[in-house]
């Protein structure tokens, strides 16, 4: 990007200045609220200071001058560090898992409004500091991606909100009180309390859509061509999780079996769920299994994959750090090995079993099965042995309460869900290509 650097900074300066001013205003309002509503002058002062800080940043941003913008950017060393760390494939997924675990474990701390507000400010500041980086900006400000950025923040907010309510309820219930929702059993009026609110929402959404439609034009690209496909070729944002699965599984698995199981599993939840607690109010303590399974399945294995697919997957479906140039010339060495090869060639030092050239169909199938036996056994073991094993160990209570059929269903769904992270880890650690690799019948697993 020679010579375009200053052009880029000029282009972004207006937006960034506005962004910081908005942050300042929001923090000012927050300070006012804390002062007036909560009567916490010290805290109000903190937010006010923060507002002033943002206010100072805004003229720097508005200047559009490279040397001034440099001061409100993430330093290069840190950018490189982040790029390098994110570039390690397992860091992102395990990192998000770890982060969510931490949030879960220390949820009592994180649900505090002050902490959340600080976190939000930190996130927005980080975004502001990052957006002066052309590569980062190019991805984040792409008209397709802007709503996804918004969604990330919305999702964070709602996750926090539910956790906040759940923690409050849990604390109350520990003290023997009933959940907050039970307190408000008072009925409200359809008009104005329901319909009026809805009307206002309609108007607000309408206005939002109009402004959005004017400011962010529909991202039209060039006419589709069979000889020149976009690189990277991305699915619509809501399918990016599925697309990420395609990296690890064959299309029939990632595109057909797993999505069907997701739908099927979601439909099965009411029948599987035996926990009568937590009806009509937020709680974590009383529904730990359900909460964790959902958060794992939704946040880790769906949302973070969407974020990953949107922001970190670049040309050739390579992994790119947030500040890295999406250079199609980047090459990642990906030498993956099948399990059968591990077993026969590396383990036993012999060629893969293969049928003699004149073998009949059945004989060939026999050979194939023989060749893939390690994988087949492993998978069969996983799906057949694990449920009973679980039933007599961690899920002992579950098994008792659910009965055989319900438990097996739940266990299998759970095991299938876990197949994805397992395969991911295997890919990253031992370059495992397929556990079962039957190319002859397009049956890879």
């Amino acid at each position, binding site marked *: 990007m020679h010579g375009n650097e200053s052009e880029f900074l000029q282009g972004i300066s207006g937006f960034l200045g506005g962004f910081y001013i908005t942050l300042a205003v929001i923090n000012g309002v927050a300070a006012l609220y804390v002062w007036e509503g909560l009567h916490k002058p010290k805290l109000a002062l903190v937010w006010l200071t923060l507002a002033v800080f943002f206010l100072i940043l805004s003229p720097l941003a508005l200047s559009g001058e490279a040397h001034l913008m440099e001061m409100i950017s993430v330093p290069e060393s840190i950018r490189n560090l982040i790029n390098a760390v994110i570039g390690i494939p397992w860091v992102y997924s395990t990192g998000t898992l770890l982060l969510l675990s931490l949030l879960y474990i220390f949820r009592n701390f994180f649900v505090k409004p002050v902490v959340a507000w600080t976190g939000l400010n930190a996130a927005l500041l980080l975004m502001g500091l990052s957006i002066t980086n052309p590569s980062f900006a190019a991805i984040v400000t792409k008209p397709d991606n802007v709503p996804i950025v918004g969604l990330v923040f919305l999702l964070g907010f709602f996750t926090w909100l539910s956790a906040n309510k759940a923690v409050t309820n849990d604390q109350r219930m520990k003290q023997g009180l009933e959940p907050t929702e039970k307190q408000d059993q008072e009925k409200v009026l359809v008009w104005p*309390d329901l319909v009026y609110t809805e009307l206002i929402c309609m*108007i607000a959404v309408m206005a939002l859509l109009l402004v959005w439609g004017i400011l962010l034009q529909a991202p039209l690209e060039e006419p589709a061509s069979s000889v020149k496909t976009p690189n990277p070729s991305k699915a619509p944002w809501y399918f990016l999780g599925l697309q990420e699965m395609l990296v690890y599984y064959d299309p029939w698995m990632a595109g057909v079996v797993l999505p069907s199981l997701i739908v099927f599993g979601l439909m099965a939840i009411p029948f599987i769920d035996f926990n009568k607690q937590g009806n009509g109010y937020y709680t974590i303590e009383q529904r730990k299994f359900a909460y964790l399974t959902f958060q794992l399945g939704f946040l880790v294995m769906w949302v973070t994959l969407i974020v990953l697919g949107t922001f970190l997957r670049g040309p050739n479906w390579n992994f790119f750090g947030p500040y890295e140039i999406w250079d199609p010339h980047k090459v990642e060495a990906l030498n993956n090995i099948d399990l059968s090869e591990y077993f026969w060639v590396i383990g036993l030092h012999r060629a893969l079993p293969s049928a003699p050239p004149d073998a009949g169909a059945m004989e060939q199938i026999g050979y194939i099965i023989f060749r893939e036996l390690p994988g087949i056994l492993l998978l069969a073991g996983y799906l057949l042995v694990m449920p009973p094993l679980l039933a007599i160990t961690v899920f002992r209570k579950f098994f008792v309460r659910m009965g055989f059929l319900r438990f097996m269903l739940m266990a299998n769904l759970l095991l299938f869900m876990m197949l994805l992270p397992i395969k991911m880890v295997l890919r990253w650690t031992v370059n495992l290509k397929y556990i079962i690799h039957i190319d002859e019948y397009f049956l890879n697993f």
Partner: protein
Amino acid sequence: MPATEKTWRSQKLMHAIFGISGLVLLLSTYWMLQADHSREWKGYQRNARNIERDLTRWKKYEFQTREVQDEVEKLAEQLKAVQTKDLDKALYAKLIKKIENPIPDSDSSKIDLSEIKSLHDQLQQASDKTEIRQQLIAQLQEIVGKAKSDEKERSRLRKFQNADYDAAKAKLSLGVRDSLSDDEMTALQAKVDRESDEVAKRTETYEAFNTYRKDLEDTLGQMTTEEVDASKALEGKQADLKLLEVAAQESTVTYFESSFPFLGKKWLELPILDAFNSPLTIDNHHYPELLVDYNFKGVARFDRCTTCHRSIDKASTHDPRKPAYLPARELTLLLGTPDAKPEAVKTLREVYGIRIANEGLVDSNDLTVSYVRPSSPAALAIAAPDTENTNRKTGLQLRQVVAQSLNQLAEPKNGLQVGDVILAINGNKILEERAFQRFLMQTTKWGELLKIRVRRGLPQPYTGHPRLDLFTGPSSPHALQKIGCTSCHEGQGSATAFKWTSHTPSNLDQREAWQKEHGWFNNHHWIFPMYPNRFAEASCLRCHHEVTDLQPSERFPEPPAAKLMAGHKLINSYGCFGCHEINGFDGPDQRVGPDLRLEPNYFAVAQELGHLAERRVRDYQKQLQKVSGDADQLAEVNRRLAILSEIRNLAGQVASDWEHAHGARQQLRELLSSKIESTSDEPLLPASDNLARTLNDVDSPGRLRKVGPSLRYVGHKLDKKFLYDWIQEPKHFRPGTKMPQFFGLREHLDGTDLETSQKFEPIEIRGIVTYLLQQTQDYQPVDPPTDIDPVDSAEQLERGKRLFQTRGCLACHTHEAFPAAKPAVTNHFAGEIPHGPDLSALGSKLIRSGKADGPRWLQSWLREPSNYHVRTRMPNLLLEPIEQRDPTGKLTGVVTDPVADISAFLLSFRSDWQPVPAASQPADLVNLDEFVLQLLSNTYHQQAAKRYLEQGIPESMRSELKGAELELVGSASTEQKLLYVGRKAVAKYGCYGCHDVPGFEDAKPIGTGLADWGRKDPSKLDFAHITHHLHHEREHQHAGHESEHSDLLDPYFEQLIGDHDRAGFAMQKLRQPRSYDYKNITNKGYNERLRMPLFPLSDQQREAVLTFVLGLVAEPPRAEYVNRPQGREKAIVEGRQVLEKYNCGGCHVLETERWSLAFQADDFRNPPATKAYPFLRTHYNVQQTTESEQKDYRDRMHAQVSGFPALSDEDGLPQVWDEEDDPLDDEELYQSDNVSFRFDLWKPALLNGNAYEVGVIQLQVPAPTIEKKFAPRGGHLTRYLLPRVVAFEQEVNPSVKGSEAWGWLPPPLIGEGRKVKTDWLHDFLLDPHPIRPALFLRMPRFNMSSNEATKLVNYFAAMDQANYPYEFDTRTRASHLASEEVEYRGRLRERNLPEPGVDEMARLDAAMNIVVNNNYCVKCHLIGDFEPEGTARAKAPNLANVFQRLRPEFVRRWIANPKQIHSYTSMPVNIPYDPDVDHAGGVSQDLYTGTSTQQLDGLVDLLMNFDTYTENRSPVAPLVQPAEPTAVLSTNSAAVAGGSP
């Protein structure tokens, strides 16, 4: 819990939120409407509308001048005068009589005529007759009206009756259907008859009424003719003004109007209302046949460009072929002021004829000219000369400039025009009208010129298309309605906003301005961005596949696509297609673009086969001696020898002329592919399979020859040192060479990359040299003629120089001894592209020690070029030995060999060039092994490669080897390694793309095909680290010398590279072909490096090449849009290709110079009245004559004249005269504006209504009247030689005239098509023979095919609208001759003259009398065996051959008046025509009885029937011996045997 009235949330707050959100929604809705409504294009449309409105208003001024108003008044008065006249009495009486006697049963009989009569009486007496006359006419008209209604009524009755008649007939038919009884049928038939009678009756009545009405009308009409005519004239004068008023009304858009309907159209521009016929609309042009390629589907084109570019097809009011407005540019004019201060009251308009508008067109503050009176000082203002032009030139320089005949295409910028914006006067800025007025009316120095700086034209998008004659104009070949915009310009035609249309800036300033003003960005999502202006011509190629159809033509004299043509020419002459095939075909007959491909390599294959066969024959002959004992073996060897000699024979035929040896090629191929049964498995010819395949027929084969010389025999011509030096850097020896540089291109290399280059390049060069010399095949030089007298070397050099200069070499070649002979640059994009190489310093090149015998080669080459290189374009100059003559023209008996002379002359030039030291040193073999190993490792495993390097490739592997590896079979000596390296290098660098290299006959081009490169996906181009390289280069230059800055890549293209644009890629590729290797090759093998060589092109030339390449998109539109010339046009287009290929224009003038003149009535002398044969006169129709007299607003008439500047008799340079009408003195200085030229018309012209015939009078053209000059096509050498041959000739004959020099040089080919017969020309082109004794040089024999000759013949015929391919000649018909003979004899009898015998051809004999009379033809002409006395220059072509060569009509015109065809000819009018004397002139009646025309025809008939005439004179019958009786017998028996009676 019971419900309460308490709400959950505070209602107040909710209301507030609701209020705010409602407000936000309102605002955003407004914003949406606003964003949707105020679109960019509306502003442009409003402006365009205002411009239009202002212009219409200003146009009205033209009708408000005194002259026009006077005229209107005059017409009004005329009308009035007519209206006060009495009515014609006779007509009145006639009318009244008619009215009084109407048709019997009409109602008109009741008409009371008393009132009319009384009115008529009153009219007679009245003093003011107007009103009464009016009343009277009205009354009369009423009567006519009555008659009309009567007639109508009768017509109606007849119609009704007709209907009844039809019904009756139908009933009768139905009766037939229903088989009614006879009675019933009879009744029905009776009814039909009755109705029919009735119809006839009514028709009669109607016709009577009709006639009556017409009668009345006619009479009344006659009475009022004058009045009607007068009022029509008045209306006609005001019609244009009325139209303008209506137009102005329509283009005015306001909210309210002063009259009904009160509400203006502007309401309709408001949101929502604009759905109903808004005055502002998007212009949609739909082109369903011109598709945009959306990858999966071709989608109809939808152009909305004219939404903003409203005036793109608007023509100027002065000239419909010129746009109304060009892009704004500034110019300076000189305005003449009155001699003295005008009276105080006078206005600008009265004094200068100029008016200033209240408001400017685009910017209302602009001081804009709104009216210029024709012929006023303002209209006559002239362009201020540029400072450079004011330099005075000497007379000689001026004349030399004229002799160069350069294009002068700039539009003359004369006269102030409507719309000009005044910027400054005499350097003072003018901002308001008062200041302007002050300058012009008060402070001026009267009588002097004022310098006015104006801005002419409008900014985009309000301009018209600059080439309205070619594009968008309704009469242009690319009308807007038919072709649209984006089909040529590309871009997003559907878009209506600047940035979405994919406009593409043509330079960086524009880019920056657009970014600022329009938010332009490089929208790479639209894959068809507009061509930047500088490449706009590229798109012509999409439809113009022949390319030559884009040359200037009669209809479009200004080059339609100069840059593109330059690119085409460059590609053709630098031979890009040798490596980069440009295949114009997709399948055998699907044409997709220009076709630039090499011709099939048949000749080289045949030569190689011949060579192989020859070698084989020698082997077998040796074997033959050994095996003489064994009969079987002997037979086998003999059989093989027979086949081989057949192969050799066929190969020889194909090699020497494959285009005409189709059969031999087939046979050869079959012979090679047929299996040769043999006892031994030894192949007959090694490696002949591929060669045989290469002999196959090709569907639509390429037509281009390799541009470089053949290297098959190069060892006989050049030595090792020269070759080494040349290959390393061609321009080291010859700075102007077209050969590109392959080695030493290292500016992008450093470190180990650079070292590798330095290490391996010398080895490659050494290898190539070794290969070429080792592979050199046997070649037999042409022997010099015997009987040449020994020569003195100084004399020989002098002769050689003269011959080199005059025998045509300089038409294609340049030489340091003749710097002035360089062709002028006709296309500044192409620059100088020599046709042949520069021949300076040939001595240094060819006189070398060693085996190569350069001088001998040179002589052989000059004698017969195709002996050395079969497909060379160099013609055989037919340099036969010359018998020298002394100055008086007598033979001296000394015979010289021109070849030896020229060759001695050429070899006498040596330069201080020395081969690079490396060329002389023995090969540096340290790196050879390393290099060979690297090459081998590409093919073999490392271990094997090492083994082969030491021991060579084992013999057993020979059969699997292909190509270079064969050189290493057996052993690996240094020589073999070098051969291996050489062969590899030739293959790698593709030397055979331009040269014929032995061993590479079947090799394929090495470069990327370019047929669709203009659409190549930039993601498929490897830009590598080019931006870093360019950056590095820039830094480096900054650090270094300032002066080298011009070498850097144009920043525009650097920007394009940054945008990953293919044009940027290609530009840099041409500039530094290897630079994409920068930092990219350290980890690659040496052979993987880029190998494109550096061509010696200038930046401008590169851009021209690029323009052509970008146009290669292989996406032709539908067939009807592709320009596929037919008929004559096709002949011209194809002919031009051949003309260019053989550089015919190097010698011959193909088209004359043309001057566009803008002159005043008295600028030219009227042509004198001459007595010419009626058939010689050019006839013009009335329209042409009036057009030629049409004056423009500057009071000037326009015409275009074709011809050449007249030459001075003294020195053959053009004549130029000064102000006093004296010829220019060569030494003196002159102002180039004040001179005048003499112009020889070569085509008749019509100036100011006067017909100027060719050869009658020279036009005296004052320099300022020349608006444009169009350079002639061809004739470069002729024009160079004109003054020089005059000088030569004056050495021997001081009295020769310079104006005759045209006749001693290659004849101009203007009118050639009408002149010569097609079959003769075809044969002549293939095998020329001398025609004109006067010529300094002969037509050489070109290495062309019959097909090409045919194309040339057709071209000439088509250019002259002559018949081709054949023409029937009535003059040679026996019946014609017989009837003429009878008539002639009749004439003789009439005059009682003796009549010759019946066997004699009396008329032709008489004609022959004229021919052989000493005063006429034989004075100059050769005829048969007769040759006149005198010098060669005075002799004329042999008349005995005329019947073969010339068309009869031409001969007739020529004899009638030769000067009228070629004004330069020295042939006089021999049979003068003068209708006023006896026999209408002509020669003496003693020679030929008859009028001049009859004599002329007799002469023509003689010449056209010369064969018949001479046959008649020398009968063959007497020569035949009486037959022997046996012969008769045998004939009889043969007849019997044949069974015939």
